[in-house]
């Protein structure tokens, strides 16, 4: 018993010791488990939940479809199409060198830049934005880990160069960079949306969530006033002439005088907005709106309008044209041909600079300057296009004698082609100045009208009588003996004015001898104008007169446009019209 009693405490102790050890180990184990549970369920709960969600959820990011730009007959001028871009997740690529080699071969790219991207620490890199379908299928076949495809929207211009400077273009990210694409970017680009779907272990997504998808707000469609056929006619005619006369560039504007709607703005040289990066900025610019030039003798239209409107002159008022040489102070004004006394209508017909100077002297600088400004020169027209130039008209108080003289025949004043076209529209529209516009409506994706633009009347510039008398005078410019004979269109009465301006040489601080701008501005049919056409040819070689270089472009545009617009010839035979200025116009029409 004694021995037992002695042994018992030792055994108990040992058992207790073992119990304590086991309990401690178990407690520690449970502690670790509980600690880990707290860590996972409490401390890292949100992060782990996100990571788990990432495993079975797939996020979709929908870029809205950019609105389509249509011409006035709903022909697509700019559309957005889905294209695939190739991207990569560098962290998921086990062998960047091998992947680079395969990608470079499939995409026909250099290995260096690709390897640099794939070796970077970034989570996501672009390999090739807007890849071609054959490139995408070639890369798909490779089945490379860490290489993915993203569907993006790309702007495409199916008519290529047609009205490119007006429409403008978009960058890779789908933002409008120039032209109407830039101006109407807030309307054309919609609102992006994001949503989530679940995916299984194989990565297949399934749409089981009964959650309504967010509404995709695509961009509005924009319907222009431009007519693709008239635009093409203008571009074709302009292009041929610029080539024939080896000119630097050319611009043509076609407008509806009654509304101010722009039917065409043609530029040469042309550019393809699908590959806009290959062209110089000046080629991509809408020069008809952004660039100003001296109008030359076309400005005599407004001098004549001011003279008639002032009441100081009539079409028959005569002015002595000094046989082609007229000295004012130290300055001498020349005419191309020597004339004696000419009436106002003949000054316009033969484009006498001396006659114009004398008309200017008669009506006075202040009145003339007011009328110039009333026609909209020196201020922006407010056309819905970016970068419009206001041109340059000095206040008459700052006109020197030389300025007052030169402005009468279109020197010392500058304007954009659109400004000049708009002012001619006022003459053709019975003296009412209209605001020019390029967009007539905006619709949503389903074609429902979102916004429409109506013609805007700005002000009356001259009376109806003055406008109509002026139109008859301008008909004579395109008649036999007039400077604009080559603008005559068979079967129609044409009113217009030629202009030839020397260009300013910035280095010589004067006018360059061999650099000219040839201009023709007019409207047809003269007595019920359907279109106003302005042609500006910059630095033509061989010939430089507006009547030789620009007038034939006017004729071609007018002839084809009138056929297209289904405006029947008003002059069936030359014998139908007799007497007066009309007869002269008819003769010219049939000889032109």
């Amino acid at each position, binding site marked *: 018993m004694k021995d037992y009693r002695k042994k018992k405490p030792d055994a108990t102790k040992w058992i207790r010791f073992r119990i304590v050890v086991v309990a401690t180990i178990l407690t520690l184990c449970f502690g670790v488990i509980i600690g880990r549970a707290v860590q996972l369920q409490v401390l890292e709960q949100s992060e782990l939940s996100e990571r788990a969600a990432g495993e079975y959820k797939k996020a979709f990011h929908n870029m809205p479809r950019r609105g389509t730009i249509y011409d006035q007959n709903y022909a697509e001028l700019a559309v957005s199409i889905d294209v695939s871009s190739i991207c990569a997740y560098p962290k998921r690529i086990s062998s960047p060198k091998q992947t680079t080699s395969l990608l470079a071969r499939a995409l026909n790219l250099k290995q260096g830049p690709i390897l640099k991207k794939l070796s970077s620490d970034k989570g996501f890199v672009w390999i090739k934005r807007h890849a071609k379908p054959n490139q995408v299928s070639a890369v798909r076949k490779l089945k490379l880990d860490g290489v993915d495809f993203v569907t993006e929207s790309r702007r495409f211009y199916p008519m290529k160069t*047609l009205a490119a400077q007006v429409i403008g273009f978009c960058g890779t990210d789908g933002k409008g960079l120039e032209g109407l694409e830039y101006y109407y970017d807030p309307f054309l680009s919609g609102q992006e949306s994001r949503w989530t779907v679940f995916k299984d272990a194989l990565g297949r997504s399934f749409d089981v969530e009964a959650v309504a998808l967010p509404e995709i707000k695509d961009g509005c469609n924009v319907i222009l006033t431009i007519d693709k056929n008239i635009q093409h006619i203008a571009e074709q005619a302009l292009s041929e002439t610029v080539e024939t006369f080896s000119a630097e560039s050319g611009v043509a504007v076609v407008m509806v005088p009654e509304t101010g709607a722009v039917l065409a703005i043609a530029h040469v040289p042309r550019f393809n907005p699908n590959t806009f990066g290959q062209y110089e900025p000046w080629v991509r610019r809408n020069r008809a709106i952004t660039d100003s030039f001296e109008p030359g003798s076309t400005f005599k239209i407004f001098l004549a309008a001011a003279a008639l409107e002032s009441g100081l002159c009539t079409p028959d008022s005569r002015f002595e044209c000094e046989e082609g040489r007229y000295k004012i102070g130290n300055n001498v004004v020349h005419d191309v041909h020597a004339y004696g006394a000419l009436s106002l209508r003949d000054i316009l017909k033969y484009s006498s600079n001396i006659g114009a100077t004398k008309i200017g002297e008669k009506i006075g600088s202040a009145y003339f300057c007011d009328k110039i400004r009333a026609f909209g020169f020196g201020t922006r027209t407010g056309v819905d296009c970016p970068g419009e130039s206001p041109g340059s008209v000095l206040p008459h108080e700052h006109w020197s004698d030389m300025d007052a003289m030169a402005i009468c025949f279109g020197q010392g004043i500058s304007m954009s082609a659109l400004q000049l076209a708009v002012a001619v529209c006022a003459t053709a529209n019975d003296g009412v100045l209209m605001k020019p516009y390029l967009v007539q409506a905006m619709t949503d994706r389903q074609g429902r009208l979102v916004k429409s633009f109506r013609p805007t009347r700005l002000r009356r510039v001259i009376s109806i009588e003055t406008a109509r008398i002026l139109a008859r005078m301008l008909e004579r410019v395109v008649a036999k003996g007039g400077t604009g004979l080559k603008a005559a269109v068979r079967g129609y009465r044409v009113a217009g004015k030629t202009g030839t301006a020397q260009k300013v040489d910035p280095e010589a601080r004067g006018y360059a001898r061999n650099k000219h701008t040839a201009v023709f501005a007019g409207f047809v049919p003269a007595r019920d104008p359907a279109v106003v056409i302005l042609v500006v040819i910059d630095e033509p070689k061989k010939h430089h007169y507006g009547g030789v270089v620009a007038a034939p472009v006017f004729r071609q545009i007018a002839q*084809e446009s009138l056929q297209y617009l289904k405006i029947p010839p008003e002059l069936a035979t030359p014998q139908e019209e007799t007497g007066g200025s009309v007869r002269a116009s008819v003769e010219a029409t049939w000889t032109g």
Partner: protein
Amino acid sequence: MTRRKAVRKPRSTLTPWLLLIVFFVAELLVFSWCRVQYVQTGYDIDQVKQERRQLIALHHELQVEEARLRSPERIRRLAQKRGLVMPDSSHVVVLP
């Protein structure tokens, strides 16, 4: 005559349990079938949506192609190849 005492057999408790188990198993199978159909329909919807997206994209591409083919420059080029010219006013017959 001795009256025979009706001996009642003890009712088996197994049948209700079996019925319950069968019911639950059947319910489980139906639920599983529904669940599988549910997921499968989800896949089908997703696939149809994808097809729709592809068809819309194709439609857009065809519209672009049509617009390209209708471009006035191309038509003029084709017309010139065939010897066609732009009519002038003398070719126009105005009907009274």
